[in-house]
């Protein structure tokens, strides 16, 4: 038999390029974004990427919808911070750089513990049982304050032990590079996992658990193993979080955090490996940056989410892949103008809508501070009819034009898709 199945060979170059690029991005990011806040955000992104990817081992790879993933990252954080405390008390001698691994082991351990129960089921019962475990752990975390430190949490100082090569982990940048290193390794490891027998069988379990039983695999074991591995990586993310923030509070095991993993993994795109990476980045941008930019961030987040689920259920990764497909057939260029038009009209609509929303929020929250709202450098006056009229006008015009371009775009798009289908058929025939 010829080795025709080495289909990857030509792609391998591409893969090298991608991984190198990824490493470069991780390496250079803090040179580009240098403020404390952006370095802190970059670090948080690294953590979120690991967490979302570990979550996607369950959701995207294994078809397990978990509502309690924060339990594993969170408990990883707690164990890590307790370790850090022990280290600073001199009771343990672990270098700080290895503490995230201890978090990983903790996540792994709790995944073994809880996963034994949860992975017995799949589908909706799995989802519900993880919800229950999540709520329970969260509630208990506020009750057992010895370990969880109550709502004040546990804090520690990451600058302990002797510096190695002058690295104390005091400065944020040093911590960032630690996190970046972990991110790179974890992403690579999780990617590698998807190419192993267990990874593939996990996909099979997602697609059709029944049939898997008839090719010799115990689906429960497959889910359980995947759950543990996912717990391990979640724990690493948690451990890194402990070092980054030097404080761990109950919210890290809470349902909101679990919900955020789910939301952003989905937004990034659960069907593709790299989707959650986008999701993790978005998560930090939305939770940290957006909430600082506008008081209406939750509304924006909710709306974006609604529309994404409705119009792009494959997440951002799905959108990207769709366009790559079009590009692969050499048809992307002709969409260029449409995209530009969509972007412009969309922005106009958003601009108007944003103005309206900001003014409404202003009226509700800070009317008394003064009628003016700062909006993208312009000043809107909530008392002036012109502001309202203007914003609404801009919004409506934007929406109208957007709709027109969208329709044209859609036609064009489906035309291209039809052509591509035909082309594929033709190639198959050949």
């Amino acid at each position, binding site marked *: 038999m010829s080795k025709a199945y080495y289909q990857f060979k030509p792609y391998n170059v591409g893969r090298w390029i991608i991984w190198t690029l990824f490493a470069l991005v991780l390496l250079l990011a803090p040179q580009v974004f240098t*403020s*404390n*806040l952006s370095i*802190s*955000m970059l670090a*948080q992104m690294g953590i979120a990427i690991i967490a979302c990817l570990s979550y996607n081992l369950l959701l995207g790879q294994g078809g397990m919808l978990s509502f309690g993933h924060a339990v594993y990252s969170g408990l990883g954080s707690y164990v890590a911070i307790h370790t850090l405390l022990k280290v600073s008390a001199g009771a343990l001698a672990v270098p700080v750089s290895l503490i995230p691994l201890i978090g990983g082991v903790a996540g792994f351990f709790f995944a073994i513990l809880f996963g034994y129960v949860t992975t017995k089921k799949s589908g909706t019962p799995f989802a519900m049982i993880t919800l229950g475990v999540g709520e329970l752990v969260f*509630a208990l975390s*506020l*009750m057992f*304050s010895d370990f969880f430190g*109550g*709502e*004040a*949490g546990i*804090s520690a*100082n990451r*600058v302990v032990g002797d510096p190695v090569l002058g690295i104390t982990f*005091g*400065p*944020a940048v040093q911590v960032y590079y630690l996190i970046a290193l972990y991110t790179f390794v974890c992403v690579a490891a999780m990617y590698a996992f998807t190419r192993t027998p267990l990874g593939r069988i996990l996909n099979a379990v997602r697609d059709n658990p029944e049939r898997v039983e008839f090719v010799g695999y115990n689906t429960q074991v497959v889910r359980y193993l995947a759950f543990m591995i996912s717990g391990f990586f979640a724990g690493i993310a948690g451990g890194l*979080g402990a070092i980054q*923030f*030097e*404080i761990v*509070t109950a*919210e*890290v095991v809470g349902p909101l955090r679990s919900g955020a993993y789910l939301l952003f993994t989905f937004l990034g795109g659960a069907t593709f490996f790299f989707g959650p990476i986008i999701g993790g980045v978005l998560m930090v941008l939305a*939770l*940290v940056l957006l*909430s*600082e930019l506008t*008081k209406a*961030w*939750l509304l924006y987040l909710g709306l974006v989410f609604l529309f994404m689920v409705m119009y792009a259920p494959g997440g951002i990764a799905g959108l990207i892949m769709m366009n790559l497909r079009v590009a692969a057939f050499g048809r992307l260029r002709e969409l260029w103008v449409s995209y530009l038009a969509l972007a412009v009209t969309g922005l106009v609509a958003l601009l108007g809508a944003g103005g309206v929303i900001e003014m409404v929020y202003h009226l509700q*929250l*800070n*009317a*008394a*501070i003064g009628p003016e709202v700062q909006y993208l450098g312009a000043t809107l006056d909530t008392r002036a009819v012109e502001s309202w009229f203007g914003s609404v006008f801009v919004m409506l015009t934007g929406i109208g034009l957007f709709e027109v371009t969208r329709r044209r775009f859609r036609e064009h798009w489906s035309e291209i898709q039809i052509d591509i289908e035909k082309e594929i058929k033709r190639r198959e025939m050949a």
Partner: protein
Amino acid sequence: QAQSARQAKREQASAASNAPLAGQTVKIAWIDPLSGLMAPVGSNQVKSFQFFAEKFSGPNKHNPAGVKWEVVPFDNKLSPAESLTALQSAIDQGIRYITQGNGSSVAGALIEAVARHNARNPGKEVVFLNHSAVDPDFTNSKCNYWHFRFDADTSMKMEALTTFMKDETSVKKVYLLNQNYSHGHQVAKYAKELLASKRPDIQVVGEDLHPLAQVRDFAPYIAKIKASGADAVITGNWGSDLALLVKAAVEGGYNGKFYTYYAGVTGTPTALGQSAAGKVYQISYNHYHMGGEYSQWQNEFQKKFNADFYTGSVIHIYRALSEAMARAKSTDPVKVAKELEGLKFTSYNGEVEMRKTDHQLQQPLYLSRWQKTDNKFTYNVENTGMTFALVREFPSYVSSTPTSCAMQRPN
């Protein structure tokens, strides 16, 4: 009218003449919740800060330094971790003063974070002005040089409350119902300690902790309290946990009194309504009929925002900060912090002192009672037709509690 206006102008002019820092802007980062459970309180407080920033900016008698105040709000979503990110962001923007108060959990995290930051970044120090977080640990076991508290801590309030109860002979049995987190634990702890020493005859007939903001139905708790025969309840509850508790008591025919910390916080008065009249007491460092300028501001605030001003520590903070800056002739946090220590200044509740040993403001406390407005107590709280009427005032020395703080000062 005209006269007083002229007088104000004159005062301003004289203030300006010896305002050493006039023209400088001091930014204060406000890191508190604007979304989530505590958002109502947070939005009220950010308004308070902005209101007085506007009022006190520039040289005037409340601003001897003559600086211009600017408040930069950060929504921390009541989360310690988010607060640290906000702190980072504030520091990046060059802000050197931060204020926070909602949630001792966040305060604890901020205290440590500020301490770490200051240690790691000499020359970029940050001062933390705590306006409402009342965990006594912050000025005892966990006291820190960069932290200054302008509220009165749990132990001080309980000191005053039990002093009042000493004379309330009708109270024989009390019940302690609190939220299951550090604030609730501490209220229960100090209540037991101080009652035992001041009114040993009072029996604590029951003690309960319930999860924070989880309980919708307090009827079972009321049934339990009734069954215990308690004639008063001491509770540190706030928000809906307090409102629902009192509501359930009214409906369940419980006639005992409620000694509370936070009955006046946004939303709760509305929920208390008229049926709770005479049953609910609040211990605080201010009340709704302080008189003088304070009452004017309160009314002005009411008119402007259709909300009640209750976070009086905001005024303390601007006052103290300006005073210290004037003395330091600088807005450098290191110098200002030094001046803040032990600073004595006059505020709306008389002469107060930022105690040097632990950075806890020493100030009078007031006990007030929920009742219908009348000729004497006119302030209409949350447009309910009800108000908190002053029952008793406790001078600073009464409510003062000792500290175990061993302050580490930077050299």
